[in-house]
């Protein structure tokens, strides 16, 4: 028994509430308030995981977010997540935790033998070894061995993570002494403050380091300060790490709940930010410095004072700075046998009572197998130890400052990078700014708040003992004996860094990629600075000359549900829905997504959808079809310059259209390519409706707005997207007029009054309806538009009255057949990003229009006039053959090689014609009607005949029938 729980003390734990959880199959006992790590330590579990590459035994190093070693996969009813830091995860009843990278357990890992081959697998070993003959030969096995925790594939998030947008005057990150002081000062100056901290309780170092503030014990000052802030309505968020600062000082927070709920993502837009993020203790370099039982000295003090865990009985504390002296004193006080080894010979604080001091010595190596058993000093002295606490100095936590593009400045005195030039709206305070003593910390808080332009008083005063900041740098040096770990999590040793330098990966960014130094879940919080100091020493540069890698979010891992929020499942890309969706479903509508709309593909048919589609298309030609065309764009263009505007927007002249009439036309992009097609309705002199393609409404609307605002002016044209306002129900077929007559809409359906391409106004059930004689089927059609919320009775009426005419409901698939029979195109299906209007047979405006319009100049380039452009054609195959494959290429043979001449764009079986119909874009197709062409698809070649696009009723008689 070495580590143990003391009978008394522990500010964080509640001894009246014992808890139990499992680790690697064994039961671990703890108290409410414990972390997984503190409970494991209290139970004297030394080996908590295996290292990434060599499967070395690893113990708990730290007590916070910096932890490189103690990661666990967490399962059970409350949580499921891989690679969770045991040091920050609360121990809870019923948790199931497993060590990572270990089989079957961390203690007995069967891949531990790999460490004996360590000399053969240095950094970049994989890159060099598995290049030949082919990396993919080795990849599966290597991947199977790589990685740390395991994702539970069966796990699904218990809910949707909340995402909160939050605004405040000042965001303070870190609720230690510096952050609390800054928050109080800012609150006193009248600012709204949000104070966040990654730990479960505010206080930071004051929760385990000695100190008095304003004459009170630190803990009292913390409690009073928090109560005061909360009482004044400021927001205090514990267990909420700030993981990133993004552009314009957006701060991302991930609030943890620990009760089974997903975490909550906070997007904070503060006017100003104080970073009081503290500092992280570094390891010391000596051989085997990764053995379990070798810990951060400060972490040992955390475990002692917050969790009443004494981490060892025979303890060696090795340090190069003053901060470990309080640790040595506290452990000796708690009953441990403590030897303090300081690399310095003089300038140290007083030696604490009951502590043996060895000065002027560093650790050369540690020994032990599954846990540390002793250390050897530089002079060869051996000390037995069941725990070795090390303090290699403090690295200010300037990650967020770096993410905000803050420049760093090297401090030789502190042996660390400190925040350099100020970043707009961001100030740094406390240990993160290099302050050590409480007096310095509070002074830095005053400076931080003052630097943001706020009055900062009254400042808290430190009235107790204070720590001092003496340090003598102890960086890893090249040529050291033994295996000295720099990065525990990625198994990067000093020799790996030396190897990288030998192979000229001397840039710090290259060093990182070559050796993996500073990667993975801890992102090198303990290892980056020692690594680049070593590189500096190897290459004869200073540490600031080597520089740091780029700081990027996230500072701590963030669960994906936090980022996803509600954007999961159907909410990832919400579909637009028809007003009559439920009615269609009741009629057996089978829905599919078409261009962002959920629409009936066909009605009924069960397993034989194709038969159902064919039946719909056939019956539509025989009598009358009902189709829900509500998705069709209805963008109103209104104003004194509306006609002029539309002339400019459209390829076709639109100002000559008479009120009450419709005209089909193209919209082009400025590069001449057909962007959209559709029917324009002129309601009156200054009012039009652009009826664009269903899936193109947003894009057409944006385009109209752009030209309106850029070219025509806001007072001359108004644009209103009324697509969702109205439902459009289409009646099509030889008996369409008879069926529409039953509606008694109060207008004449006489073709002399309401001919093809005209509109009329009527009413149904007291609501105004608009009837447009527009046809996408080639048959006489009436598009009836009515308020979307009043469409249902009209549809029911059509269905009821339609029974007398054997009316058929048709879905989009049947409509596609009907329009293809007629050679009517769908933009984006029968055209591509090179199709110009004259490729589709629309030559007249190009030839005749003198006024400028969007895309005009592009229709007169060499490319636009090229003789072998692909043109819209029909493609026919003999009766009895299957339809051509959509996407199949028309080919020609040149010296035995195949060359594409275009491709099939639409292809269907036509039930009315009893043969397949197809459309395609084929080179010079317009002049090749009647020619045979070979169509190749997936290696098979068939012969088709080029024809006019329209295969059915080419004279258009049925429009008027």
């Amino acid at each position, binding site marked *: 028994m070495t580590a143990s729980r003391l009978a008394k003390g522990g500010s964080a734990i509640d001894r009246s509430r014992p808890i139990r959880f499992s680790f690697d199959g064994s039961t671990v006992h703890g108290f409410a308030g414990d972390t997984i790590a503190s409970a494991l330590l209290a139970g004297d579990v030394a080996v908590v995981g295996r290292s990434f590459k060599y499967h070395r035994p690893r113990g708990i190093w730290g007590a916070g977010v910096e932890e490189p070693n103690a990661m666990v996969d967490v399962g059970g009813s409350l949580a499921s997540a891989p690679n969770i830091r045991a040091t920050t995860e609360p121990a809870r009843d019923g948790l199931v935790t497993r060590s990572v990278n270990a089989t079957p357990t961390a203690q007995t890992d069967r891949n531990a033998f790999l460490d004996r081959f360590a000399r053969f697998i240095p950094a970049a070993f994989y890159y060099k070894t598995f290049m030949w003959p082919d990396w993919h030969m080795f990849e599966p096995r290597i991947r199977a061995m790589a990685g740390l925790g395991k994702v539970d594939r069966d796990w699904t998030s218990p809910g949707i993570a909340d995402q909160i947008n939050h605004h405040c005057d000042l965001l303070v990150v870190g609720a230690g002494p510096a952050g609390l002081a800054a928050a109080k000062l800012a609150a006193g100056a009248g600012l709204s403050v949000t104070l966040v901290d990654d730990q479960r309780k505010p206080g930071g170092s004051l929760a385990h380091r000695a100190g008095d503030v304003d004459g009170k014990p630190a803990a009292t000052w913390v409690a009073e300060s928090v109560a005061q802030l909360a009482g004044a309505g400021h927001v205090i968020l514990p267990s909420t790490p700030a993981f990133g600062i993004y552009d*314009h000082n957006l701060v991302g927070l991930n609030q943890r709940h620990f009760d089974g709920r997903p975490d909550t993502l906070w997007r904070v837009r503060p006017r100003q930010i104080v970073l009081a993020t503290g500092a992280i203790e570094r390891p010391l370099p000596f051989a085997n410095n990764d053995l379990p039982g070798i810990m951060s000295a400060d972490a040992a003090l955390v475990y002692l004072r917050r969790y009443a865990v004494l981490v060892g009985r025979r303890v060696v504390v090795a340090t190069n700075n003053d901060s470990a002296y309080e640790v040595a004193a506290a452990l000796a006080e708690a009953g441990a046998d403590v030897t303090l080894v300081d690399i310095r010979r003089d300038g140290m604080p007083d030696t604490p009572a009951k502590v043996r001091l060895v000065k002027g010595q560093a650790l050369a190596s540690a020994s032990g197998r599954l846990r540390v058993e002793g250390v050897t000093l530089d002079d060869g002295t051996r000390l037995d130890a069941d725990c070795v606490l090390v303090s290699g100095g403090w690295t200010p936590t300037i990650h967020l400052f770096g993410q905000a593009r803050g420049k760093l400045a090297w401090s030789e005195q502190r042996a660390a990078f400190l925040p350099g030039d100020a970043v707009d709206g961001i100030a740094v305070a406390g240990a993160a700014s290099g302050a050590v003593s409480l007096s310095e910390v509070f002074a830095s808080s005053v400076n931080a708040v003052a630097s943001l332009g706020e009055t900062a008083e009254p400042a808290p005063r430190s009235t107790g003992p204070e720590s001092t900041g003496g340090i003598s740098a102890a960086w890893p040096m090249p040529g050291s004996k033994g295996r000295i770990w720099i990065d525990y999590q990625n198994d990067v040793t000093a020799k790996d860094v030396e190897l990288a330098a030998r192979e000229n990966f001397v840039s710090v960014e290259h060093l990182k990629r070559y050796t993996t130094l500073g990667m993975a879940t801890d992102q090198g919080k303990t290892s980056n600075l020692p690594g680049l100091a070593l590189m500096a020493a190897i290459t004869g540069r200073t540490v600031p000359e080597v520089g740091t890698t780029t700081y990027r979010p996230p500072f701590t891992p963030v669960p994906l549900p936090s980022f996803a929020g509600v954007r999961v499942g159907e909410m990832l890309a919400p579909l637009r829905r028809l007003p009559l969706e439920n009615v269609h479903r009741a009629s057996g509508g089978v829905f599919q997504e078409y261009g962002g709309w959920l629409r009936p593909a066909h009605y009924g048919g069960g397993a034989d959808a194709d038969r159902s589609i064919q039946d719909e298309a056939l019956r539509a030609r025989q009598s009358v079809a009902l189709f829900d065309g509500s998705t069709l764009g209805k963008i109103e263009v209104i104003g004194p310059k509306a006609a002029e505007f539309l002339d400019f927007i459209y390829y076709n002249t639109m100002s000559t259209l008479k009120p009450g009439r419709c005209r089909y036309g193209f919209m082009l992009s400025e590069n001449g390519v057909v962007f959209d097609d559709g029917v324009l309705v002129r309601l009156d002199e200054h009012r039009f409706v652009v009826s664009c393609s269903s899936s193109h409404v947003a894009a057409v609307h944006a385009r109209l707005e752009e030209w309106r*605002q850029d070219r025509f*002016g806001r007072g001359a044209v108004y644009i209103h997207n009324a697509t969702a306002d109205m439902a459009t129900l289409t009646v099509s077929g030889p008996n369409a007029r008879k069926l529409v007559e039953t509606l008694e809409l109060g207008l004449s359906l006489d073709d002399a009054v309401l001919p093809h391409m005209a509109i009329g106004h009527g009413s149904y059930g007291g609501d105004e309806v608009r009837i447009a004689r527009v046809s996408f089927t080639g048959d006489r059609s009436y598009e009836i538009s009515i308020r979307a919320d009043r469409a249902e009775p009209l549809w029911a009426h059509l269905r009821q009255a339609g029974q007398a005419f054997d009316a058929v409901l048709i879905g989009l698939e049947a409509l596609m057949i009907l329009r293809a029979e007629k050679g009517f195109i769908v933009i984006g299906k029968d055209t591509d990003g090179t199709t110009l209007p004259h490729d589709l047979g629309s030559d007249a405006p190009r030839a005749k229009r003198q006024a*400028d319009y969007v895309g005009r100049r592009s229709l007169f380039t060499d490319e636009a006039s090229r003789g072998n452009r692909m043109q819209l054609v029909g493609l026919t195959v003999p009766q009895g053959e299957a339809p051509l494959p959509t996407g199949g290429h028309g080919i020609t043979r040149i010296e035995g090689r195949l060359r594409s001449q275009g491709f099939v764009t639409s292809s269907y079986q036509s039930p009315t014609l009893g043969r397949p119909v197809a459309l395609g874009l084929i080179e010079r197709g317009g002049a090749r009607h009647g020619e045979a062409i070979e169509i190749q698809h997936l290696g098979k070649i068939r012969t088709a005949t080029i024809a006019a696009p329209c295969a059915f009723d080419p004279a258009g008689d049925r429009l008027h029938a």
Partner: protein
Amino acid sequence: MQLFPCPFCGPRDESEFHYGGHAGNARPDGAGMPAEGWAGYLYLRPNPKGTAREIWVHMNCGEFFVMERDTVSHTVLSVTTLGGEHAA
């Protein structure tokens, strides 16, 4: 996430905006425009390091506007609503 000041709505997240091209790319009128000039209007884009003048649209309200911003520091220097300069 940058904050762009929509002239109509005020500061909003950048994800609500679409880029609409660089400002000052005046449309050459007339079919007589030489192909080179037309190609420049269609395809040539500056990619300035530093101050850029760009057209953006706030998708939520439909406002098109000119935004001057620094492509290095991401500082927004100014926004101006489109005037419809050809408007009578």
